[in-house]
């Protein structure tokens, strides 16, 4: 018998996944493939590298607030908050209570819209187009709120600035936010997205890209990726910032560690965020929205000498800023720690080894990645 199969199947080859994806910014992975199985993966970042950390050294905090939106485009308000907190802590500013509540509401709304994008691209990546359209339709409601409150749909242009926020909540904003939240979360424990769940999506994600709890900690995974591996850790609870200790919310975890677990954690987090927004709107006190000394922006304010490390729970995981000041009006050194930096390089490389080619998009998008905060 002539065996033709053997000859067909003897080749190892290299394929490039990316850098142009339909569902995220530019980022490449080089896959060494044997037949259908990925032997090794090598991430190829750097398409979006602008050097934020050093750009910030040339600018004063009021300009850096605008720059900090662009660290991660998908959740610009969350990064706005991280930067503002770092400056607040360095300068010892007492942020008014109302501003803190506004910050929390916007950060949580930003998390919801980021998770909607995540749901959208997971659906698009696994061939479920309806999910993509519905998620992006819902996200636009939140963008409308952002436009109403901050003035920009995607980039708030430094709305959350050192000292508080730029502008008070406009009239009617609370009711409108409540309406949008009830559109996304139909009631306390169901979102629209759960109703969309179907067998195809589940089959594509279940059992794919399993990350054990030990590996997750060792590789520095944070956020939904870590919680999908069964570790109950959330910066909002463990290392509370702003007014997060006042709210009741749960930290969803799943023990499986596969792509489906991460996806489920994401959906649960939308509900928890909605819960926080509802509480925050109810508890929001009256008063100032910005510290009095910042009401009129002064350009060259000296930042006292010192260093801070600010940790926040952004939608993708742990977002940190390490800011050093030497006493001048510009920060001496800013280090931005984006959660996707570790998710997209060591974690992704680890998960792709041994995966099938068809599962590569499912694994890639289940990590909730944003190339912009990796390259910075």
């Amino acid at each position: 018998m002539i065996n033709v199969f053997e000859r067909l199947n003897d080749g190892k080859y290299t394929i490039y996944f990316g850098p142009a994806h339909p569902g995220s910014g530019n980022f490449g992975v080089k896959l060494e493939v044997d037949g259908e199985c990925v032997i090794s993966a090598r991430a190829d970042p750097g398409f979006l590298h602008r050097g934020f950390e050093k750009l910030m050294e040339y600018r004063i905090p009021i300009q850096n607030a605008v720059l900090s939106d662009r660290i991660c485009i998908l959740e610009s308000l969350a990064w706005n908050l991280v930067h503002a907190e770092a400056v607040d802590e360095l300068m010892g500013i007492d942020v008014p209570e109302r501003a803190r509540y506004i910050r929390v509401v916007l950060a949580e709304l930003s998390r919801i819209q980021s998770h909607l994008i995540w749901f959208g691209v997971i659906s698009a990546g696994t061939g479920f187009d309806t999910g993509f359209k519905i998620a992006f339709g819902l996200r636009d409601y939140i963008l409308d709120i952002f436009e109403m409150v901050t003035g920009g749909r995607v980039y708030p242009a430094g709305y959350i600035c050192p000292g508080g926020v730029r502008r008070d909540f406009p009239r009617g904003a609370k009711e409108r936010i409540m309406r949008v939240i009830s559109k996304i979360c139909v009631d306390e424990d169901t979102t629209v997205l759960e109703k969309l769940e179907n067998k195809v999506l589940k089959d594509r994600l279940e059992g794919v890209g399993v990350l054990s709890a030990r590996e997750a900690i060792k590789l520095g995974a944070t956020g939904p990726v870590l919680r999908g591996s069964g570790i109950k850790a959330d910066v909002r609870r463990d290392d509370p910032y702003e007014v997060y200790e006042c709210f009741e919310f749960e930290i969803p975890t799943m023990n499986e560690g596969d792509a489906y677990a991460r996806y489920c954690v994401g959906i649960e987090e939308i509900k928890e965020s909605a819960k926080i927004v509802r509480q925050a709107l109810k508890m929001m006190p009256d008063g100032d929205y910005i510290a009095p000394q910042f009401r009129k922006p002064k350009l060259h304010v000296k930042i006292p000498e010192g260093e801070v490390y600010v940790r926040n729970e952004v939608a993708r995981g742990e977002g940190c800023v390490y800011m050093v000041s030497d006493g001048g009006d510009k920060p001496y050194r800013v280090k931005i720690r984006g959660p996707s930096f570790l998710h997209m390089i060591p974690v992704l490389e680890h998960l792709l080894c041994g995966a099938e080619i068809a599962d590569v998009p499912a694994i890639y998008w289940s990590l909730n990645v944003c190339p912009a905060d990796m390259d910075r």
Partner: protein
Amino acid sequence: MKREIEVLQCLKEKFGAEGYVRRDRRVFITVDAEKVKEAILLLKNKGYEHLSAISVTDWIKDGEFEITYHLWSYESKILVTLKTRIKRDKAIIESISDIWGGNARTHEREMHELFGVEFLGNDDLVPLFLEDWDGPPPFRKDFDWRAYVREKFYSMDNERERSYYD
């Protein structure tokens, strides 16, 4: 605040480190460059198993690089920033990639590219972000971006671009 001071005391006794507690859950400690790996191993065994980031600060006036390791403990919920200084003209430090694997390796790879710090024992220091970059390590303080950009991209003769020269 008690547990923060405990960590600080422990490192002070073992490695002669200096440091301070900035606020709740934030400790900053400075150790010598030779002892940094030992200190990190000790901290890791104490439960500081999340390496949040590795960063480099360029103190050009002192002629030194300051390398900072940010470690978080999921159990005691404290963030320890371990700092060490090395000479700028001899920027070599031991790698911690054998303790943390891919996580530390990637952070060190980034810092090697952006600051030119050599990490001994890290076998994967190929450029991460830049392709065909032949200038100095771009994040060092003596590399002036604005001067570089003016020379490379803009011209004084172009009226639109003259404002970049102010």
